[in-house]
């Protein structure tokens, strides 16, 4: 072994010791410690991967990024997985890819309509607008918070060209119906799978049904790289276009630090450029730079090994909470899966029923006062936010349920960092609130 290799081993051994010292498992102190809604779950492996990568000092995507993309695409059973620096970037790349001139007549053009929902996260919607496409909003179901497929069918018009929707909080939307609509009307389908890694529909992983799928690896998500995301597809042509938009818009698909993987770097003709102009600097799209570092990918490699365990713990936590909160179903609409689906739950969504005798604000305030984190179902109704008022759009069938989500829905966590003690604390807080306790306002 070289001196550097020996030192690297010593450093990684120390990193393990550091992890033990810095991140010991501490017993949960109810009322003092937060019961987070989400968070990073890691052990010494993630730290070792991170330091190992930093010692390479390659910095940009390299061996860990290559490994993650290979292992992740295998996990999904798809040809391609392209790491990007966030789930939002993944959506931007995915939607923008469909505007590529390389798609000929099938490309999305300004003014084309895209079906989506308003009850969600802004960066599902933003790329539609950023590409001068027109969103068409349909309402969601309460309980599963996914689009009503009948509304989707009603919303299709002569300019409708795509469907871009999220599997809300891990609940797969009706992929049978959406798939049929897409096929019947020759629509592109992008699954925003950022909140649903590991969810299944008819036993097939979500994110693998559409032409493109997107993932987020933000700390709140099923696995994390800190910041990070991924675009996945089984269409090699779309993968190449997406890679181009991710990598400055260049035509060349070489990874950072590599050249001439195509073997024709100096012998091609592009547009009116001189014959043989360096392919590495030929731009076929107006693109971005949305790549990850190898340090991020290194953490992702360690997280990916734990993904199945994480999914199982999310499901177990969800089931436990569901049982614990069933007694309050007369006042709380509890979350449900769509038919044929097995969600990898992102959170536990609750809608305070009309006539419950209390408001969402009162319940959320009580939970937060008891150190239980809550979150809105993201934006509630995106159309009511300052950024999105006045955007060109259509609404089909009204958004009554979306407004209900905005006023009455929130979610608490089911993430793997919640152990039994934390879950019992959460259940206890709900029970006390339902008995009428209201003390401890913020």
């Amino acid at each position, binding site marked *: 072994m070289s001196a550097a290799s020996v030192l690297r081993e010593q450093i990684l051994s120390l990193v393990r010791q550091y992890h033990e010292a810095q991140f010991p498992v501490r017993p949960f102190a109810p009322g003092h410690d937060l019961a987070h809604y989400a968070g990073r779950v890691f052990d010494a492996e993630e730290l070792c991967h991170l330091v190992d990568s930093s*010692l*390479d000092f*390659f910095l940009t995507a*390299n*061996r860990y990024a*290559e490994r993650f*993309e*290979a292992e992740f*695409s295998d996990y999904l059973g798809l*040809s*391609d*997985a392209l790491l990007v620096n966030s789930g939002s970037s993944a959506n931007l790349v995915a939607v923008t890819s469909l505007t590529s001139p390389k798609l000929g007549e099938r490309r999305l053009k300004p003014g084309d309509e895209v079906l989506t929902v308003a009850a969600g996260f802004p960066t599902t919607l933003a790329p539609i607008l950023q590409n001068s496409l027109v969103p068409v909003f349909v309402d969601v179901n309460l309980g599963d918070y996914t689009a009503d497929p009948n509304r989707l069918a009603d919303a299709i018009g002569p300019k409708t060209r795509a469907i871009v929707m999220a599997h809300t909080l891990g609940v797969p939307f009706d992929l049978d119906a959406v798939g049929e609509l897409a096929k019947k009307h020759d629509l592109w389908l992008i699954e925003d799978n950022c909140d649903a890694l590991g969810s299944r529909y008819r036993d097939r992983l979500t994110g693998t049904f559409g032409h493109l799928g997107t993932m987020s690896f933000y700390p709140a998500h099923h696995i994390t790289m800190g910041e990070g995301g991924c675009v996945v597809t089984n269409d*090699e042509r779309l*993968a*190449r276009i997406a890679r181009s938009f991710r990598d400055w818009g260049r035509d060349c*698909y070489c*990874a950072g*630090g*590599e050249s*001439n*993987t*195509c*073997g*024709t*770097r*100096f*012998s091609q003709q592009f547009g009116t450029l001189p014959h043989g102009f360096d392919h590495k600097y030929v731009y076929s799209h107006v693109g971005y730079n949305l790549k990850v570092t190898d340090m991020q990918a290194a953490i992702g490699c360690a997280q990916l090994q734990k993904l199945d365990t994480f999914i199982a713990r999310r499901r177990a936590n969800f089931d436990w909470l569901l049982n614990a909160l069933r007694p309050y179903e007369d006042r709380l609409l509890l979350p449900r899966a769509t038919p044929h689906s097995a969600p990898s739950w992102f959170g536990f969504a609750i809608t305070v029923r009309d006539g419950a005798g209390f408001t969402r604000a009162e319940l959320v305030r009580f939970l937060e006062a008891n150190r239980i984190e809550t979150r809105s179902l993201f934006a509630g109704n995106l159309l009511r936010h300052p950024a999105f008022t006045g955007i060109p759009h259509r609404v089909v069938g009204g958004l009554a349920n979306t407004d209900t989500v905005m006023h009455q829905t929130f979610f608490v966590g089911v993430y793997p960092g919640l152990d039994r003690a934390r879950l019992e604390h959460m259940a206890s807080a709900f029970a006390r609130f339902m008995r009428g306790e209201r003390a401890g306002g913020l």
Partner: protein
Amino acid sequence: MAVAQKLQCAVERIVDHGEHVYTLVLRPDRPAPRFRAGQFLHLALDPYDPTGFWPESRVFSIASSPDDRSAVRVTYAVHGQFTARMESEIREGGRVWIKMPYGDFVIDSPGDVVLFAGGTGISAFTAYLEALSPPASDRSYVLGYGARTAELLIYKDVVDRSAARVPALDVTWFVETGAIPSSRIGDPTRWLPGRVSVAALWTQIRRPRESDFYISGPPAMLAAVAADLRARQVAPEAIHIDAWE
């Protein structure tokens, strides 16, 4: 293009075809990534440290079937410094690094297909030919395959098997120098002296305006065949060339 991966491989077997033409059978340490018939790989002779940069490498068509990712086969002829190094340095039992898959030279035409293969250029077509099955429709395949000598038609067995299995595959052999095998005398329309040429194949092509043409071989052959096709008013988008620098 599927996610490209770098793989260390054991050199399991070297087949010396003579005249400095070799086939390498490489066994990667882990299964090769998914690839499509016609794609290529990079092969490096110098050690690769995954924490650093990829060393100098050259590209070679993947001649083996995508169905078997436990072994990868490439065929090369010694033409320059790198392939001379390959000839002198690669030994059975040795180790090399590859990265794969790359390339768009994938035969995905729904209509008639015409293949021009010169020398080791046939390796871009072998995986496709091995997977070829009798078409359900009235589809035809034409292959012109040439080499310097009959002995250097190194994938003749693959072509023969495909032709036996797929009657719609029409094969014409070209031999630049030396004798045509005596067993083939009396079959002059199928065994022709000289280089692979469009003129010699043109009458075999049933629907030239509806065919896709794929060319793989030495640069001079690529240029000549492509120029001839263009002169015959074949649309540029129907001409696919497996060209590397």
